[in-house]
């Protein structure tokens, strides 16, 4: 039975969402031997401004590389949460950051308000790795890619010398997922 799983990572420029999307795609495509595409939409700014990264994972060839009916939406700003939740499919999953999102939308999807940025800053030690904490949560909740593939993809992609920090960020994200799972 073939499948097409759509993930949208949304927030603002500088939050590492494009990198997170690329890691998720590489985990699926290279280490789990599936097909994956990652695309983005961004403004001319280097920091700030709306940013959105989309990952499609499938066991077949992927034609349209953008999301049509989202399975999982990550929202790291209130604006992105408000703007994109209506694209979630019925029974989809919304994961929002509790420090930036105060109003969680209601719909026919499961939603979780979680301490993503706070966990990265206080428990892992660097707010910068919030994107990798989020990947841990996404991997744990969706089970769309294996934990091993994610760790391999993270280590292959993050700057040298930060592997340990990023591994810790990913594991912390997985633990958050277990609590809500």
């Amino acid at each position, binding site marked *: 039975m073939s499948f097409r799983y759509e993930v949208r990572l949304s927030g603002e420029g500088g939050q590492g969402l494009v990198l997170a*999307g*690329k890691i998720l*795609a*590489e985990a699926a*495509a*290279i280490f789990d031997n599936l*097909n*994956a*595409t*990652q*695309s*983005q*939409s*961004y*403004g*001319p700014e280097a920091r700030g401004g709306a940013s959105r990264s989309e990952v499609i994972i499938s066991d077949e060839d*992927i*034609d*349209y*590389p*953008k999301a*049509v009916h989202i399975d999982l939406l990550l929202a790291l700003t209130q604006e992105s949460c408000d703007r994109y939740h209506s694209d979630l499919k019925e029974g989809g999953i919304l994961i929002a950051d509790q420090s930036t999102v105060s109003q969680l939308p209601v719909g026919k999807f499961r939603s979780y308000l979680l301490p993503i940025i706070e966990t990265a800053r206080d428990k892992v030690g660097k707010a910068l790795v919030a994107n990798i904490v989020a990947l841990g949560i996404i991997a744990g909740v969706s089970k769309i890619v294996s934990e091993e593939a994610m760790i391999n993809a993270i280590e292959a992609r993050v700057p040298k010398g930060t592997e340990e920090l990023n591994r810790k960020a990913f594991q912390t994200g997985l633990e958050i997922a277990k609590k809500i799972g």
Partner: protein
Amino acid sequence: MSEKDSTNRVQVLSGNEACAMGALAADMRFYAGYPITPSSEIAEVLSLELPKTGGVFIQMEDEIASMGAIIGASLAGSKSMTATSGPGFSLMQENIGYASMAEVPCVIVNVMRGGPSTGLPTMPAQADVMQARWGTHGDHPIIAIAPYSVGETFDLTIRAFNLAEKFRTPVILLMDEILGHVNEKVVFPRSEEIQVVKRNRPGVAPQNYLPYANTESGVPPMVSFGEGYRYHVTGLAHDETGFPTNKAQDIERLLLRLNNKLERNRDQIIDYATDQFEDAEIGILSYGSSARSARHAVFLARQKGIKAGLFRLKTIWPFAGQEIADHTARLKAWVVPEMNLGQIAHEVEWAVGRSVPVHRINRVDGNPINPLEILAKIEEIC
């Protein structure tokens, strides 16, 4: 094949990165360009990789000079290319005409963004299709090809160089922002599977060489400057020696040879792909990223029991009008989705006449065409 080779052959890359790698695989050794979104990663990768191969990377002062530089490098024997987007492509037109007239092989990549003018730097469009054909003045030959996936971008970049060398002509690789920036899985061919065309060299001594000979194939052999074959290159109408002429007979012979050399070899140039077309009643004709939306729409339509099929152009110019007409017999209608206001739909109408209606789906707001828009049109027609 060792395990290491098989791992390296599978990568997640963007279309721009794959374009740069395809150019290197085609033995491109000279790049001159001026970075512009959404094409800049092509220059970025080549600025790192070309010097390692002994090749040359130059960041030029503008796109006019970039075209001039790659024409000069090609005449001196290097396969050469530049990459840009709409605004830079406009500046290149004068020298593209020169390359076409002087029959200098080179590759121009245009990663299309929204226009006109500086338009939408970070958003996709396909509105330079007609500019690729007629952006430079005069009756001139041109080849334009359009990949639709990252893997195909690698393959068609190599093909662009092969066609340029084979037919002594500038070749335009038309990409778009989605394709340039999408990261996807690519399984690269083994190096022995890659075919690279070398320039056809003359079999005569320097004193007998005619750089613009009226050969049977329409494509005269070409030598590199510096090898002892001295000849004249000009944008003026010229005779077989390359020197300017005002003789009507020579001028006409040149213009007809130039324009016929692609037309008479069109079977070698025109390339397209079909998907679920055998029993199709609704034909979706598209190219580049829009063809990905179209393919998904065909999938969705088939799920609803509608016989839709995809006809995807890989060669845009010369236009596959005959091939499209040949695929029209059993259709109720064509649907042509594209990120412009109907530039290719117009060509399709011209190709099929009044035999079937041609429905347009156009989007010029910086967003890709959603497969559901195409599906809605298909359902409306049925």
